[in-house]
């Protein structure tokens, strides 16, 4: 099986981590990077796992083609925790995934109002999620001026982990306006989603 990892724009250790994860299941992995540190680090990773590596510099990035050797590639103990154990999918926590500031498809104004109502109602319904992840335009809900701010803050105060995608906050230039929860990165968010027993996406 062949797998491609596009690690352009990512800083170390992410290219190494993503390549390692791909190598666990795939026989051939092509990792695309855009800086020399990532080239050196992914090369070291490949050699340490007994894999052959070929480096091809193209106009749009540096392509590292890795062929797995005879030995299986395994993850260390900390790594394994990231993978969802297939036998017991329901064992993980309940995660609420919010990739938009609008609830459902339709007029924007309606969607925003519904989203406000959702978080207001969430304070009174069970079961509560362990973590709420805000991504893409969803991060607008956790910054200054959001109509849902007060309700999300109350949820956070009750012990629910509230995470906002750092890349998204940066994209919308809202990093300084974050008013509830903490900034997170794709690695942590991906880990949380994969470890979840159940994901509810709005």
């Amino acid at each position, binding site marked *: 099986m062949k797998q491609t990892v596009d690690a352009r724009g990512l800083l170390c250790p992410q290219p190494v981590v993503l390549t390692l994860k791909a190598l666990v299941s795939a026989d051939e992995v092509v990792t695309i990077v855009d800086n020399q540190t990532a080239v050196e680090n992914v090369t070291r990773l490949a050699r340490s796992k007994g894999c052959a590596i070929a480096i091809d510099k193209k106009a749009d990035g540096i392509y590292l083609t890795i062929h797995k050797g005879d030995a299986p590639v395994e993850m260390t103990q900390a790594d394994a925790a990231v993978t969802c154990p297939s036998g017991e999918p329901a064992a993980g926590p309940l995660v609420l995934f919010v990739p938009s500031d609008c609830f459902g498809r339709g007029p924007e104004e309606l969607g925003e109002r519904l989203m406000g109502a959702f978080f207001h109602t969430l304070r009174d319904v069970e079961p509560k999620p362990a973590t709420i992840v805000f991504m893409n335009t969803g991060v607008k809900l956790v910054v200054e001026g959001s109509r849902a701010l007060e309700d999300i803050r109350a949820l*956070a105060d009750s012990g629910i982990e509230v995470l906002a995608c750092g890349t998204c906050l940066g994209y919308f230039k809202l990093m300084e306006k974050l008013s509830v929860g903490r900034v997170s990165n794709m690695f942590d968010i991906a880990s949380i989603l994969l470890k979840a027993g159940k994901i509810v996406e709005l």
Partner: protein
Amino acid sequence: MAIVDLFESVTECGCAAKVPAQELSGLLRGVELPADPAVLVGPDTLDDAGIYKLSEEQCLVQTVDFFPPVARRPEDYGRIAAANALSDVYAMGGRPLTALAIVCMPSRLVKDGVLRDITRGAAEKLREAGCTLLGGHSVLDPQAKFGLSVTGLIHPKDVLSNAAARPGDVLVLTKPVGTGVTIMAVRAQLASAEQEAAMNRCMATLNAKAAALARRCGVRCVTDVTGFGLLGHAMQLARASDVALEIGAEGVPLLDGALTFAEEGLLSAAAYTNQDYVAPEVVYDEEVPQPQKDILCDPQTSGGLLICCPPGRLRELVSWAREELATPCGVVGRVVAASGGPRLRVRRRAFSLEEASAS
């Protein structure tokens, strides 16, 4: 209070965020500094701190050090930043007296009380060092940075410079190496909780006892190992002292897991910059494996003291160090006369006590 993970928004951690040494060395060229005979140690020798003579009996030791988060927890970050800043004073043989905090912080971390926790951690280490915090200066900044400017006192005769190594001296390192790769492994979730905790303890350990041991053993030449890695700082010491150094890679104490992390490619960009920095001055024996070479250039945060011990006092120093220091120390090499060739020679095998102290 919200639980924060300070690694979430940083790109380079700790001393790995330093401006490359290559760029720093050219910085002061063409800049006219006021000549002052009271300056005993200035910028030219790239020493750990500056020394300014106040009287025949007393000198000021001054240093400043700050960096982006090196730990997930604010209190750990504060402890480590303080231990790291104080280390420059210890590396000169001084006694820290006062400190000023340097703070660059996003407003949400100030509001959330994170800055208070960082300061609490730093204050704990300052108390341990007997050093007073007089104040500081803070700036709102989207990327958190924290550190201290520390002022100490020292008798002119007690100054431990990086320019006083003599052929025959033995190189002893007082903390394990590998904080750069271990921080990367923590961020990659490839380090265990024990490995992370051991690293944090190590970085938060003051170099006060190590400096006191060096003084007790008649040592004149010390530097602390930080952002330029063991080889980067060793090279600066060798140049400043006009000597050459032989390093035995396997004698370098390492944090648990560090060599594996290096092997798996968890190196920071600064590790490669450091390799380029030392490249003209280092010769590796053929049998030194790549991960060993990589770890020797790994940028360290709040690393140990690299002590040039007179050979006759080596056993004394090592036995005291094993008894009194909280961190493992190791004999990492020896000082030889400069030959006009590269300043650093690295072999794989460790130097034994006998071999290291044989002239």
